[in-house]
């Protein structure tokens, strides 16, 4: 758990972060979102003490970070940044092994951990382990960045616009990957972005920041339904909100389940239980259908979702 209590950061006379209070529960993904210069990156960098805070207190698991050795503190916090910050003179494997080496793990354990993480991040160890960072594509490099941050199994993950420099398709893939990995490892994550859609997709709770203050801290659904101010309302998009809310909701919640799963042959484009209601509606509109079959991960048909139901209860 990370607690920020009345934390302030000044640069000269400029107040970058203004007496914010924020509690991030263990295992949740807290996304700090706001326009550039709102203090979100500054907030993140204060948590691992890359920047000292001017006033207030930051507690990690109940202990004030100022009482801890900064190196020890950071070794227990994975850190992923936009430019990846991979070490160009080290191979992929050596980059991932950085923190375990600092912690002086035995070599055999390091090798095994590197292989495990590369597999988790969908990088084939045989082809990529001995490459150098400049031989990787942007998406691959950022996967290595994430693997490096997870290497020593830290309790906390800090991510500063990690997918900001990637193209839309790669970004989408990595976001999905992150959701999948987060389900497996459950790290307490602080994620900084300026992209509200990324925030809605990844967050357990979103903290919207504006001019050094937190203007709203709530679940994605509540941020969309009950924006605390005009600023938040503009950020989430006034008109687009209906569809954004639908994209938070899995099909599972609105479908009419069959008594028992039916065997059948789902096409490649078949709708899955975890897909969003927004996607289901889009498919129906495009194919001009009144209802759609829903499949589970094993490819069995588990129910149907109707256009009528979406219109009634979609929001």
């Amino acid at each position: 758990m990370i607690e920020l209590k009345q934390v302030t950061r000044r640069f000269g006379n400029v107040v970058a972060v203004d007496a914010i209070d924020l509690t991030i529960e263990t295992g949740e993904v807290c996304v700090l979102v706001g326009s550039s210069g709102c203090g979100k990156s500054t907030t993140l960098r204060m948590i691992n003490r890359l920047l000292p805070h001017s006033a207030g207190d930051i507690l990690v698991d109940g202990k004030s970070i100022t009482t801890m050795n900064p190196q020890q503190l950071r070794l227990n916090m994975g850190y992923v940044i936009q430019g990846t910050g991979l070490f160009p003179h080290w191979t992929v494997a050596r980059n991932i092994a950085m923190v375990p080496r600092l912690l002086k793990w035995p070599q055999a354990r390091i090798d095994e951990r590197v292989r495990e993480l590369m597999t988790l991040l969908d990088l084939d160890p045989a082809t990529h382990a001995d490459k150098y960072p400049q031989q990787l594509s942007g998406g691959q490099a950022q996967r290595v960045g994430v693997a490096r941050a997870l290497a020593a199994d830290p309790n906390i993950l800090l991510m500063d616009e990690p997918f900001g420099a990637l193209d839309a398709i790669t970004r989408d893939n990595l976001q999905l990957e992150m959701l999948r990995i987060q389900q497996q490892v459950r790290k307490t994550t602080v994620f900084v972005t300026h992209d509200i859609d990324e925030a809605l997709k990844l967050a357990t709770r979103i903290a919207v920041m504006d001019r050094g203050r937190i203007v709203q801290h709530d679940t994605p659904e509540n941020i969309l339904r009950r924006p605390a101010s005009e600023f938040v309302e503009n950020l989430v998009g006034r008109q687009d909100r209906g569809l954004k809310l639908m994209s938070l909701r899995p099909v599972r919640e609105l479908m009419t389940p069959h008594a028992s799963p039916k065997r059948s042959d789902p096409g490649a484009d078949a709708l899955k239980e975890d897909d969003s209601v927004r996607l289901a509606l889009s498919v129906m509109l495009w194919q001009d259908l009144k209802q759609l079959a829903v499949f589970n991960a094993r490819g069995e048909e588990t129910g149907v979702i109707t256009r009528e139901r979406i219109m009634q209860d979609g929001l």
Partner: protein
Amino acid sequence: MRVWLPTVLLAALLGGLSVGMSVLEPLFAWVQPDTSRVIYERESFAFLLYNHLMLVVVSAVIGTIAAVAGGIFATRPAGRDFLPLVSQIASIGQTFPPVAVLALAVPVLGFGEAPILLALILYGLLPILRNTLAGLEGIDPAVREAALGMGMSPLQVLLRVELPLAGKVILAGIRTSVTINIATAAIGSTIGARTLGDPVIAGLVNGNTAYVLQGAILIGLLALTADSLFEALERNWDRHSGRVRPPVFR
């Protein structure tokens, strides 16, 4: 080991000529037909070469330590304010002609090796310092940020990340500095240091072009040998750090 081949060949030629210059006696006799002695014999070339080399090596070691330390200091958070000052001092060292340093240093340090060592150290500082600064400043800030943010201490960041990444650029600075100083060391002969400049000065004083040529050839060969040695070192650096690999098509 093909990278080392030019160095070995040049070094063999240099060594061979410094012990067996007399092989070329007919050539020098043709250059300087009116004198009986065409090969410089007041001191053995091998001794002069050794002394010349030592002056350059000692000044390069001291200069490198000073310049790299200065460059590191000036790029640390605590030393950043001194960055302009440090580069100015090095620039002054470079603009001050070595001859002037000798003229000023002889009354204080006396004749011999000391004044020329001082002049070489001052003259060689700038290329090393400038390259140290360029190498350290040229590192992607994200790399330094990641290294610190993942838990390396500032010393670990310097030794494991910054110096290995800046090393090739620093090495190029040392190469420039050493090559220049091999030529500059010859003027030490004017104040009693024993260098390969001795035959050159003697030749100029006595009107013996053959002497001048012998000194100049050896100095030139020494500079080429040193340069090719650094060339090989730089290539080796690439291999170990893996920074230049055949590009991979994505």
